[in-house]
């Protein structure tokens, strides 16, 4: 049930490819630590690819929100890519869908980050 996470860089944007479940405990902690590590390295353009995330609980949603605000408060940008229907629906009912910048295409997602 653990979350898989891998990192890659494309045109100055750091993409975190997440897979599995983002839930209280392992998944949410991994996400938090990964984003903090990136910020510590000065990598502030972050794209979370959720295409393989099949489950997220309220703690996982909370971590997405915390990651978003943390990155934003440090002058960065965090966006979401490839939401599954379940994750999309959860963000809709929690009214977070309009908070996040959600993309369904990686190339356009990368192009949308501010030049810096």
């Amino acid at each position, binding site marked *: *049930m653990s979350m898989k996470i891998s990192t890659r860089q494309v045109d100055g944007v750091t993409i975190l490819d997440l897979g599995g479940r983002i*839930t*209280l*405990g392992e998944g949410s902690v991994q996400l938090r630590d990964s984003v903090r590590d990136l910020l510590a390295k000065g990598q502030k353009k972050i794209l979370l690819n959720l295409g393989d995330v099949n*489950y997220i*609980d*309220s*703690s996982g*949603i*909370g*971590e997405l*929100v*915390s990651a*978003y*605000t943390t990155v934003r408060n440090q002058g960065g940008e965090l966006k979401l890519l490839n939401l599954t229907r*379940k994750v999309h*629906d*959860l963000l*809709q*009912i*929690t*009214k*977070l869908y309009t*908070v996040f910048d959600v993309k369904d295409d990686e190339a356009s997602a990368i192009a949308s980050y501010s030049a810096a």
Partner: protein
Amino acid sequence: MTGQPERRVTYTLDSSLDSVNKVEQTAEQMARKAGVDEDDIFRISMAVREAAVNAVLHGNAYDPDKRMTASFENTGVDLVIRITDEGKGLDPSTLPDPLAPENLLRGSGRGIFLIRSFMDEVHFRQMHPGTELTLIKHLGTAPTGA
């Protein structure tokens, strides 16, 4: 969906994430056996998981001396899941609205809201000590929430 009632099954579990996972899986199995559609299986298992997290994390604070009780029942008309903790008690009327603009960017506080969104009925009972959360899904009703 089946109208065949099944005897209530009750588990007494420690206050751990393993217990939360077990409760979630049991709810999913129960819903699947009842013939509920896939979307509602997801909603029910997620609502039950949120209730179990509340019990373990907020109610019992992972205290190894405190227990969570989870019962599962198919009455033939409803799926009824009861989650009980041994904590200080929860007054749902004091919970902040996670959809309020000032709360939207909070890192927590959406669990009860999701439970209410996904289940047909949600009832709180103070056990002194602790709280019992009853989650009810009516069999044969249209999907609710997301």
